[in-house]
């Protein structure tokens, strides 16, 4: 069995499962945020729900409307606060105590081999430490709150073997953009993606989060990396021990195998209006920008802020360009202060925002006007995603975003490598 089949077998109490089997799996953790939980709680009540199945395994994080931008948002937060209190939930991350939900889950909750569902499409991020995690809707997570279980079809799996090294400033974001460009937006629909090979094994857990995070942009159900020494190191540093690895069998089977070599990989850019419209930064042409955003569950971690700060250090954001940096969590924020990164950003003219999802999904903070162009380290460039349907969104790595913020046009970060 491959690693996905092994996790599903364990969660469903079976010795053996294979792609296509329908299983009922026990859920280890269920996560919701402030735009998906309100509908879920309403559904939970209408289903006749009284108490959640396990108050230590239901995690609510406020991140999409933080801090509340309207009275409606404030009301959604109040509903969730009241629910968390009434149910005595052990983990409720209120404003100022958490950050972007997936970052919070990875900092405090996710362990290898676990079966996790979240009412947010980027829940697939948690494969970075060898967990099976996927996004579901509000009504479906309500049924999980009731029962602690959910049915799954065991997905067909793709093994993406990434050989070679990523040569900085080329980053995990460039690798996943390249991969989405190859697969296209529906190329992996319903499938599980296993990342392996030298480049993945040399990648930090932060980087693995970035590649697993974006598999949903090619339709996949989950992304996963087999746990290894780097995973152990990460979990121990985070005091997430004890944990147990689930690894693939020696003769693991995959429906499809793709082999990439990163030696020649350049920094990549997803050109509007779709995430799979990917080309090397050198082929994007002359594109002036109005806004640059560094942040989100895809690229708002310390490693991301660090590389952006290296480029912005001693430089200024170009006149007429506004740059936003958004640490993915309070913890990332504090670490970034400790390393002088926030100081660098502020001196460069970057507006540092509180940890939240806002601009990425066009809900809150840093939206775009008609005719404006933004380069962003986030995950979707759909029409209207960040504000006006007449704005253009380019997706790239934090290095490319930072380089572009300095020059005012989409720029290969190698220009700042001297």
């Amino acid at each position, binding site marked *: 069995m491959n690693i996905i089949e092994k996790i599903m077998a364990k969660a469903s109490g079976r010795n053996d499962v294979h792609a296509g089997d329908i299983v009922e799996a026990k859920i280890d953790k269920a996560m919701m945020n402030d735009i998906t939980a309100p509908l879920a709680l309403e559904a939970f009540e*209408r*289903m006749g729900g009284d108490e959640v199945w396990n108050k230590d395994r239901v995690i609510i994080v406020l991140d999409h409307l933080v801090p509340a931008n309207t009275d*409606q948002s404030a009301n959604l937060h109040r509903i969730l606060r009241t629910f968390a209190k009434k149910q005595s939930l052990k983990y409720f991350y209120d404003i100022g105590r958490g950050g972007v939900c997936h970052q919070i889950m990875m900092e405090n909750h996710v362990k290898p081999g676990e079966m996790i569902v979240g009412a947010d499409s980027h829940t697939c991020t948690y494969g970075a430490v060898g967990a099976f995690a996927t996004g579901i809707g509000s009504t479906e997570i309500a049924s999980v709150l009731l029962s602690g279980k959910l049915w799954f079809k065991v997905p067909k799996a793709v093994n993406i073997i990434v050989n070679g090294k990523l040569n900085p400033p080329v980053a995990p974001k460039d690798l996943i953009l390249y991969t989405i460009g190859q697969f296209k937006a*529906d190329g992996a629909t319903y499938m599980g993606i296993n990342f392996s090979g030298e480049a993945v094994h040399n990648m930090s857990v932060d980087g693995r989060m970035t590649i697993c995070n974006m598999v949903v942009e090619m339709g996949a159900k989950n992304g996963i990396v087999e746990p290894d020494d780097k995973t152990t190191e990460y979990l121990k540093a985070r005091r997430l021990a004890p944990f147990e690895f689930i690894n693939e069998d020696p003769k693991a089977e995959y429906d499809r195998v793709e082999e990439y070599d990163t030696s020649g990989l350049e920094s990549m850019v997803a050109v509007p209006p779709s995430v799979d419209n990917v080309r090397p930064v050198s082929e994007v042409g002359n594109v002036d920008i109005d806004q640059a955003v560094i942040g989100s569950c895809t690229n708002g971690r310390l490693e991301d802020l660090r590389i952006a700060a290296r480029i912005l250090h001693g430089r200024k954001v170009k006149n007429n360009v506004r740059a936003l940096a958004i640490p993915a969590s309070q913890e990332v924020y504090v670490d970034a202060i400790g390393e002088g990164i926030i100081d660098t950003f502020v001196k460069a003219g970057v507006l540092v925002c509180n940890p939240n999802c806002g601009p990425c999904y066009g809900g809150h903070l840093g939206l775009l006007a008609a005719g404006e162009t933004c380069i962003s380290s986030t995950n979707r460039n759909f*029409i209207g995603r960040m504000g006006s349907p007449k704005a253009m969104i380019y997706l790239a790595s934090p290095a490319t975003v930072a380089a572009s913020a300095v020059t005012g046009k989409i720029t290969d970060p190698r220009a700042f490598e001297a």
Partner: protein
Amino acid sequence: MDAIQGKALKYGDGVNTDVIIPGKYLIYTDYKELAKHAMEGIDPNFLKKLGERKIIVAGTNFGCGSSREQAPIALKYAGVQCILADSFARIFYRNAINIGLPILECERISDNVGDGDELRIDFKGGSVEDISKRTKLKTNPVPDFLLEIMEKGLIEYMKDKRDKI
């Protein structure tokens, strides 16, 4: 659930959840308020067009993107009776069924059905008949339990199941 009959309203490939219900409206939990903004990101005239055409026909990967259940909710409460597409994104597909919006994958439907065509969908038998063109496309028949969820939504389905126990 009996067959559904009505006129087709056509869209292309990759209609994503952000154009179905833009992020700024996710502060609303009132279904009717959400419905007012359905498809606003792709077609400002959607609600007007929906007057006589209640069946959305689209290309590949309909509903890709976010897990927001507000997307199928907005469509359902705007008056959409059914969505047919060449293919659907995974989370949207499950969400639509769970909220009781009938949805059916039908290969090459977007090539074979014209905007405004009168369609008749037989979920149980597994077919989409284009009455205007006098053609019939085959689909996978929908099993009974799934039809029941599509018809009443997962909430009522779960309630009924609990009541029976």
